[in-house]
């Protein structure tokens, strides 16, 4: 069972769909773990999975390197700040606000208008 869940979670993680969704739900509802412990296991699970997925994505030229350096530098700073905030702050109401927000993002992605067929963009055209 762990093997199958691993495959599913790895598959979604490599597609950038958040493999945590599957693993955390499995751990909390079927394996009976608490939320924090499940998140921790998911976090550690993600690391080797991400290394393999990124290796393949880089080979397939799917990564946008321009984005990475500034985003990661600022992100490391943000992660440190978020971690220390979580130590003395009640995050429950915050997570509900966040859920409301991602619900809207999800609706937007789910019901987005279909993209036109790929075409050559006009040089210099603003989109």
């Amino acid at each position: 069972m762990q093997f199958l869940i691993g495959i599913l979670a790895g598959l979604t993680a490599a597609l950038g769909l958040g493999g945590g969704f599957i693993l955390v739900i499995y751990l909390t509802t079927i394996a009976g773990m608490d939320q924090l412990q499940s998140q921790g296991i998911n976090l550690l699970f993600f690391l080797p999975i991400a290394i393999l997925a990124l290796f393949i994505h880089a080979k397939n030229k799917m990564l946008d390197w321009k984005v990475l350096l500034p985003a990661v530098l600022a992100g490391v700073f943000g992660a440190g700040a978020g971690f220390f905030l979580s130590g003395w702050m009640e995050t429950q109401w915050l997570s509900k606000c966040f859920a409301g927000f991602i619900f809207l993002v999800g609706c937007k992605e789910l019901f987005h208008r279909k993209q036109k067929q790929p075409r050559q963009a006009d040089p210099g055209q603003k989109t």
Partner: protein
Amino acid sequence: MQDAGQTLETRSAPKNSKWKYMLLGLAAGILNGLFGAGGGVIVVPLLEKFGLDAKRAHATSIAVIFPLSLLSAALYLWRGDLQFTEAFGYIPGGLIGAAGGALLLKKISNDWLRRIFGAIIILSAVRILLR
């Protein structure tokens, strides 16, 4: 502005948006630090907003989140909140799934990727709201 000759299926990011990328990273980092996960949910739609196609946005989001997850994991381990041995059982299957998923990303259409992503994060949101 798009680079000349790019198609909608393979749009990459504009070059002069360093501040935007830093803001994106900061937001993802704070979310990851606060909740232990979830930063990726914001990275994908923001990258799409900045002009990347869905596939590139999804692949790049993993690269943004990976170092942040590494840091989060280290911080949580240091605080003693994490038991990591139980993750090991899932990793062999996970690696097989990861290889399959990474290869699938090349084939899947941007539209379907966005729809599936939308459905998954709606379900995640409902789950958090009902908790």
